[in-house]
């Protein structure tokens, strides 16, 4: 079977890659496009380390086929900082020490950004439920939640 030629947009840039039918979007990002920010934790939809936005929708890239990205808009952690300038969420994660090993962090940040785009003023409970699909073995979540709440407040100009 010939490989699929996929044309898509990643972080605003038009890109093309070749992939096998069974290759996941996560594998395509990491192996074909060298975008290794999204991580593979479980490959079964449980951990959220592979979180990306597909046409603005938060999804696990491990459970999407690479071919499905054809004509779509993919956003990854690599598109979050503007050059050298960190996104407020990234800055607050550093300030609050909301990461230790950092494996979960790209997924958590992409998920948190999606939340704040939808709901700029979430309650702590809303943050916790929204991020329930992002597992972290290190931080115990409290610092992550605090960083997200603080970034939300800053972004609201509060």
């Amino acid at each position, binding site marked *: 079977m010939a490989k699929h030629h996929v044309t898509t947009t990643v972080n605003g840039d038009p890109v093309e890659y070749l992939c096998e039918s069974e290759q996941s979007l996560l594998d395509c990002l990491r192996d074909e496009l060298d975008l290794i920010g999204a991580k593979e934790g479980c490959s079964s939809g449980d951990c959220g380390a592979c979180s990306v936005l597909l046409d603005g929708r*938060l999804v696990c890239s491990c459970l999407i*086929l690479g071919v*499905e990205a054809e004509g779509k808009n993919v956003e990854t952690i690599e598109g979050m900082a503007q050059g050298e300038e960190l996104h407020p969420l990234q800055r607050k994660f550093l300030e609050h020490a909301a990461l230790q090993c950092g494996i979960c962090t790209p997924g958590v940040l992409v998920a948190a950004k999606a939340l704040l785009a939808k709901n700029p003023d979430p309650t702590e409970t809303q943050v916790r439920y929204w991020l*329930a*699909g*992002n597992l972290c073995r290190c931080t115990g979540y409290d610092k992550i939640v605090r960083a997200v709440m603080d970034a939300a407040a800053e972004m609201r100009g509060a």
Partner: protein
Amino acid sequence: MRYEKPTTVEAASALLAGQGARVLAGGTDLLVQMKARVLSPDVVVDIKGIDATRKITKDASGYTIGAAVTGAELKEHPTLSKDWPGLVEAANLIGSTQVQGRASLGGNLCNGSPAADSVPGMIAAGAVATIAGPKGTRTLPVEDIMLAPRKLALTAGEFIVSFKIPARPAHGGDAYLRFIPRTEMDIAVVGCGVALALDASGTCTAARVSLGAVAARPLLVVDAGKALIGTKVDEAALAKMEAAARAACKPIDDKRGTVEFRIDVAGTLAKRTATIALERARKV
């Protein structure tokens, strides 16, 4: 493996009639099973290129919900959550935010798990599936689609295009609850969907009670519904319904719960779910 993305139901049925073909909707079950090598399809037929599987339409007779519409999209619909809150809540219990971005009603049903959360919600609401196949289109109530774990009443080449959800009755309400040992991200030990309708005096005129994870397939418990019809849904009627719900259970023992526990929870959950559906019906 071959990947195909047809844009018509006819083309999809033709592909699905072939050897080793499998529907792909959100992929949140299919891809997990492919990676675990539980399934190794020769052809994956992505139905999301077919317009009818991806949209929600509303008319006087109710809603038509595409089989591949995601849980997140159900929740964002401007009126669906007002008319059928229980169904939307059931679908939104599936997995995480990420899973919600992909998981569909069609996939939840056709994965063939007795514990699928949206299925009792759909059964209670009276959802009917529109099925396309090589011989044309037919309809089947959702409670008649799953026969046993991983076994469906669909024949070769058939797939679900959409679900018809009736218009909500004037004084109608629905609800879905599941019992899990955690607060998020778990599989139902018992799930229960209830939809009921009242007349202007508050007497119940219709009621459908559905249970998940207590038998080899999600159940429509007709006797539980009957226990409410013609009553004011008072304590006595609810107690009768609770008993009917327990009587319908044929669960298994597993790590999530014993037979006795599941039967007991099913009754209690049915009562709680019916109480929420009743409150909602009284409010509209």
